[in-house]
């Protein structure tokens, strides 16, 4: 079985052999000196023309038709899986409110039902000073890769309804998004990108692996892993003091007030 290193090596040696053949071919007298000059001049003209055209293309830096958002690398994004547990409220995640609903409710017991292929299993329930009203808020943090917010303009929504003491949450159809980015060449990124090769992944080899790979689950902010931050979601439900929520083993219910 050929290892990855040997496969890479074979590829590079093959490329080098190809180059040598090419150079030998062109060392011969197939193309005379005058044609060499014309060939090189023509190639330079094409390159300079494309260089000029590239500055006239109707594109702006960091922009696209949907204005994909770039995230500042210092931005702290809350981990919605632990924010209610760690802070006792949803205040620090207010910027990530996707949608909210308000229903009149006069019952004393509330059942929660999830429908659809994708369900939100992270639900926090707060007993608030409400008068016959149930408030529901859907919070989501973005998917981020290389400081690019992939969910700009594509935040999935949901349908929420309340009938006969049953609060029904229906997930929306999955959104499929494909984004491309055209990067600068690595000699430019080396001097312009502050994070360039700052934490290269060389693998562990066969030696002793010294660094810890545990994920900080008790951190209320999301930490990037391989320049990626995965989205977290939370359904935050506020109920009046006299309302009880029926337990549901399929759902991860967290009561902010402790009950």
């Amino acid at each position, binding site marked *: 079985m050929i290892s990855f*290193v040997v496969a890479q*090596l074979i590829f590079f040696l093959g490329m*080098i052999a190809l*180059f040598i053949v*090419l*150079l030998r*071919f*062109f*060392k011969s007298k197939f*193309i005379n*000196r005058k044609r*060499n*000059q014309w060939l*090189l001049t023509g*190639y*330079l003209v094409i*390159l300079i023309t*494309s260089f000029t*055209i*590239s500055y006239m*293309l109707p*594109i*702006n830096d960091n922009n696209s*038709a*949907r204005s*994909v958002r770039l995230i500042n690398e210092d931005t702290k994004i809350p981990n919605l899986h632990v924010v209610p547990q760690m802070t006792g409220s949803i205040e620090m995640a207010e910027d990530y409110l996707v949608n909210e609903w308000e229903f009149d409710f006069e019952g004393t017991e509330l059942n929660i039902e999830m429908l659809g292929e*994708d369900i939100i299993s992270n639900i926090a329930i707060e007993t608030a000073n409400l008068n016959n009203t149930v408030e529901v808020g859907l919070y989501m943090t973005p*998917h981020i*890769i*290389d400081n*690019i917010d992939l*969910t700009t303009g*594509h935040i999935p929504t949901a349908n929420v309804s309340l009938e006969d003491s049953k609060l029904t949450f229906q997930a929306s159809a999955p*959104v499929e*998004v*494909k*984004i*491309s*980015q*055209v*990067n*600068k*060449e*690595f*000699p*430019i990124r*080396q*001097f312009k990108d502050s994070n*360039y*090769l700052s934490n*290269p992944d*060389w*693998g*562990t*080899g*066969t030696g002793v692996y010294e660094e810890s790979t545990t994920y900080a689950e008790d951190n209320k902010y999301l930490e990037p892993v391989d320049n*990626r931050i*995965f*989205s977290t*979601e939370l359904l935050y439900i506020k109920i009046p003091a006299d309302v009880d929520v029926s337990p549901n083993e399929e759902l991860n219910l967290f009561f902010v007030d402790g009950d």
Partner: protein
Amino acid sequence: MSLNKVNYMSLVKKQYQFKLKAYLNVFNSLIILQLFSILIAFNPTISHGMSGYSYHGSLDSYTADFSVVFTLLWGFITAFLITTRAYREDDYTFVTNNQTQVWSNSLFLLTISFLSGLTAMLSGSLYRVIFYFAKDTNEIIWHHVTLTDFFIGFMATSMYILLFCSLGYLAGTLVQLHKVFVFILPVLFIGLLIISGNAGKNNFLVNSFLFYFQEGNLILFTLKILVTSGLLFSLSMLLIRNKEVRV
């Protein structure tokens, strides 16, 4: 006996000018390689996928890095080839010795480093233009190359090519000294790769790589490359100076 006084610098200059005209065909292969690299750069360099609540997203990253990488390899091979007999024979149309050969070759390689560095960066622009008209995706994020970026990229690429040229020239010199180096050098390189792969991140090859590729200051980087290349060319000159000169 000739009464003409031979000026060392004028000899080097004449050989250098001759090589600039005579070895122009090396750019033919560079043109093909860079155009080929543009073609293969239409496959994404890196692909990321993410899934979450009602969401499936992917991010494909494209770059013209292949053009730079192929140019580096081209520089290495060109430098290696000009040490071979077929190219060395051309020098004997002049009054020459091994030192003037090395000087004129070094100047030639320095010149083609800058020329090929320029074409490598410009081919990135060609790639972007073709990409703009050829690719069809929902959204494209363009990391625009400013004129400052272009200049930085040009200098850095030229320096990298010069480094690879000096390595190729030294390798070619060693092979000319003794044919056994044809086997020793690849074995040494493969051995270093395998040892690096097994050792993880703290090893000679990785540290050497990071010494250049992690440098964020252009001036320091240029100094590093110039000093390294100068040492490599000097070593080549030292090795070849006592080799028998063709009469």
